[in-house]
């Protein structure tokens, strides 16, 4: 099908975008278009106005300051995937990006678009949760920061007002020497994750686990941090028995069910992938 009728706007600055959002009724922001365009074609969305962000040059950047990576909301997934500083300092992001859609969709798709679309299976949503990213949002009364943990209000519902715009994402760099692992199970490469697991580990001077992060994507309405399993790993030696005990915590998750995938299947995948993601992270500790 074809998109419904709407009026197209192509502002070039953030204030101009905010001005349009403040005055237009029933407007949608168009980022990379890899989700909104299909939603228009399938007539899931009927905006009267489409505000294209692709001409807002100030929204596309990758900055690396000290212990923080700051990424403009309109930065293409392809440019993140190929960025050497991201590969070196946040390998979890690079590893996850390789699973985001396909070459053609990463060439257009943006990090801000993916986070705002907030698909429960989206790799970038899951990784932003694992990395404790901070979302920068501009609105009529200035800018505000929202921690990723508070960004999803529910299923595909980000904490953004109708007159607001996500401008950037800040990622605190995990400490040097950390280990990261990202694993995903889907029917074909690039398909939506049935389950994804992201793990981050750091080690103290005596070789024991100093911090652990486990995030599951695709299992619930929003990415799930296994906080108790994370806490249980601290002080343990990074070896298979500890990882098996932590992964067993995923048995207690309340997994989604859909027409193709029963909840018990997602739960079993979550346990297996959690163990494997932790093992992959441990193998990369240095």
């Amino acid at each position, binding site marked *: 099908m074809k*998109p419904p*009728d709407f009026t197209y706007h*192509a502002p070039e600055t953030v204030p101009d975008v905010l001005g349009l959002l403040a005055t237009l009724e029933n407007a949608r922001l168009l980022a990379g*278009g890899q989700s909104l365009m299909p939603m228009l074609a399938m007539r899931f969305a009927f905006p009267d106005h489409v505000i*294209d962000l692709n001409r807002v040059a100030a929204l596309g950047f990758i900055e690396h300051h000290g212990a923080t990576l700051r990424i403009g909301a309109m930065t293409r997934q392809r440019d993140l995937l190929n960025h050497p500083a991201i590969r070196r300092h946040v390998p979890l992001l690079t590893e996850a990006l390789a699973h985001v859609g396909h070459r*053609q969709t990463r060439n257009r798709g943006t990090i801000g678009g993916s986070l705002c679309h907030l698909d429960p299976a989206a790799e970038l949503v899951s990784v932003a949760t694992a990395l404790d990213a901070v979302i920068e949002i501009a609105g009529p009364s200035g800018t505000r920061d929202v921690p990723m943990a508070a960004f999803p209000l529910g299923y595909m519902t980000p904490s953004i007002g109708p007159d607001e715009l996500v401008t950037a994402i800040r990622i605190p760099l995990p400490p040097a020497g950390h280990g990261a692992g990202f694993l995903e199970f889907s029917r074909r490469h690039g398909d939506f994750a049935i389950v994804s697991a992201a793990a981050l580990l750091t080690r103290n001077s005596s070789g024991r686990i100093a911090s652990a992060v486990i995030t599951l994507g695709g299992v619930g309405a929003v990415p799930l941090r296994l906080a108790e399993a994370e806490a249980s790993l601290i002080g343990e030696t990074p070896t298979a028995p500890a990882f098996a005990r932590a992964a067993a915590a995923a048995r207690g998750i309340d997994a989604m069910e859909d027409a193709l995938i029963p909840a018990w299947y997602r739960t079993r995948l979550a346990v297996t992938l959690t163990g494997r993601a932790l093992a992959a992270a441990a193998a990369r500790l240095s």
Partner: protein
Amino acid sequence: MTRKVTLTVNGTVRSASLPDRKTLADLLRQDLGLTGTHLGCETGLCGACTILLDGRAVRSCLMLAVQAEGHSIITVEGLAPSATELHPLQQAFCDEHALQCGFCTPGLLTTLVEFLHDVPDPSAAEIREAISGNLCRCTGYDTIVKATLSAAARMRAP
């Protein structure tokens, strides 16, 4: 709303007046007569409509025509260097029987032209991942991978 769009297609500056909601794929096919770009699903799943936008492979059904204002586009019609000579990848597809019904071919060619530019010496596994967003319902993937390997070797040759 209707507006005029000017863009470069296969090296030539072209203009058209069209409604805001029209996709880039429909601009190419309906207004410019370039029907080599195929439309399978129109929802970004099949990859048949892939074109090169400023050198990058993108799905033309997932872009509005108005967004292409000022950009440079290469479609499958623009891959061959002349009217009598095929692009090495097109020639390899021909030689290795990498097209059956031919519906997915334009999207595969444009996707793989960009891929071979980025990865001149790929493995078969890398090729399979590169074309994961292109559906061939004749399921002729083996010959597509073979053709790509052979085109890559030919294009690397001095």
